[in-house]
């Protein structure tokens, strides 16, 4: 049985923890709002990009002269997985969810006899995947110092991927990130980057419009594909930031509530023990007086 003083100390320390988690929750909520705004602001660009891509992909077709970023290398042997996670922990199952999803994917690919390479974006994913697949990780990118995710960060990642592709480093590239559904729900998602998959959106519009291309459709497509990859990575990073903040907010909310429950329980046993001690002292006094 802990003494009264111990209990008092414990209550004080849980209270301090609760204050911290409460503050973290509020910071996460503020950041979440900003991250959500950023994700929403980026949406028009990626939507239009997708529309234009499907448009132009139809015009060029998948002939032999189509760019390699689109057709791929024709093989399916070496897979590059770009795993995007958060930089910081304390956000519930957010990071491990993405890592688990990626790990399943890796296991499947390895079982099929493919070669797997991993590019880690974000520290936490690297920490988790390092345990099992340290030899497969070829590079890691850290954005720890970055306060606000901007297009420049996406560009650095995209350029690494494309340089590797041009050097023949892999055949298929898949991007792993967490799609932001709502504050309490983030869904790990895999998205194929290379070879590019052109969506079939806006089919009716592209069918009706006969475009003039300047300079030519192929040249534009060649210019467009790297851009599209950058945009997809950028979107993934933004979704991740929003998801991380959402997960952190709910994790910290839970922690605050748990701390509250703990404080209640501890104060209960503190009060009970104090009462017991008072009663004991009274009994001692009374029985002492009676003995006289």
């Amino acid at each position, binding site marked *: 049985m802990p003494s009264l003083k111990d209990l008092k100390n414990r209550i004080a320390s849980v209270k301090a923890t609760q204050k911290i988690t409460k503050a973290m929750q509020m910071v996460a909520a503020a950041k979440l709002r900003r991250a959500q705004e*950023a994700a929403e*602001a*980026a949406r*028009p*660009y*990626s939507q*239009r*990009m997708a*529309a*234009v891509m499907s*448009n*132009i992909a139809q015009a060029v077709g998948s002939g032999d002269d189509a760019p390699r970023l689109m057709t791929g290398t024709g093989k399916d042997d070496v897979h590059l997985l770009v795993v995007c996670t958060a930089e910081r922990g304390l956000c519930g199952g957010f990071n491990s969810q993405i890592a688990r999803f990626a790990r399943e994917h890796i296991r499947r690919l390895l079982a099929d006899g493919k070669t797997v390479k991993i590019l880690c974006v974000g520290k936490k994913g690297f920490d988790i995947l390092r345990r099992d697949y340290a030899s497969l990780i070829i590079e890691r990118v850290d954005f720890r110092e970055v306060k606000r995710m*901007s*297009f420049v960060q*996406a560009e650095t990642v995209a350029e690494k991927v494309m340089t590797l592709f041009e050097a023949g480093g892999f055949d298929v590239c898949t991007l792993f990130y967490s799609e932001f559904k709502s504050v309490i729900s983030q869904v790990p998602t895999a998205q194929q980057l290379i070879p590019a998959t052109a969506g079939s959106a806006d089919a009716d519009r592209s069918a009706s*419009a*006969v*475009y*003039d*291309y*300047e*300079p030519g*459709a192929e*040249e*534009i497509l060649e*210019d*467009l594909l790297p*851009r599209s990859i*950058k*945009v997809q990575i*950028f979107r993934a990073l933004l979704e991740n930031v929003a998801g991380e903040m959402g997960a952190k907010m709910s994790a910290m909310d839970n922690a605050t509530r748990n701390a509250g429950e703990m404080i209640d329980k501890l104060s209960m046993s503190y009060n009970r023990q104090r009462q017991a001690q008072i009663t004991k002292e009274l009994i001692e006094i009374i029985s002492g007086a009676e003995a006289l």
Partner: protein
Amino acid sequence: MADSFNFELVSPEKLLLSASVTEVVIPGMEGEMTVMAHHAPTMTTIKPGVVTVVMADGRSERYVVFGGFADIVPDGCTLLAESAVAVADIDRDDLARRLQDAREDFNDATTDSGKQKAQQYLDQLTTLNGAILPA
């Protein structure tokens, strides 16, 4: 008065402008082009330069864009810029940094086609720098 159409200027970070305009001057890869309503459907890449937008109410606005492409249909025009800022907000340090990067790219380029591309980009940036510096 000329017919107006809907123009959107989008950068990856946000939608900069979505408005009804009568005329847009775009720095296309193969020369500047003025887009007005009922333009033939065209898609073009753009080079670093200044986009001039004439609004439906006669005001005009100018934006600096660094590469991207434009999707033009008879009743609208969408300009997807890699990065875009209003001319008034242009950050000269940023421009200087881009010039510096382009110069390095040019020096680092190993293949002929790479070198040519870098040279082209550098030239375009230099022109842009010269064109807006006096403003």
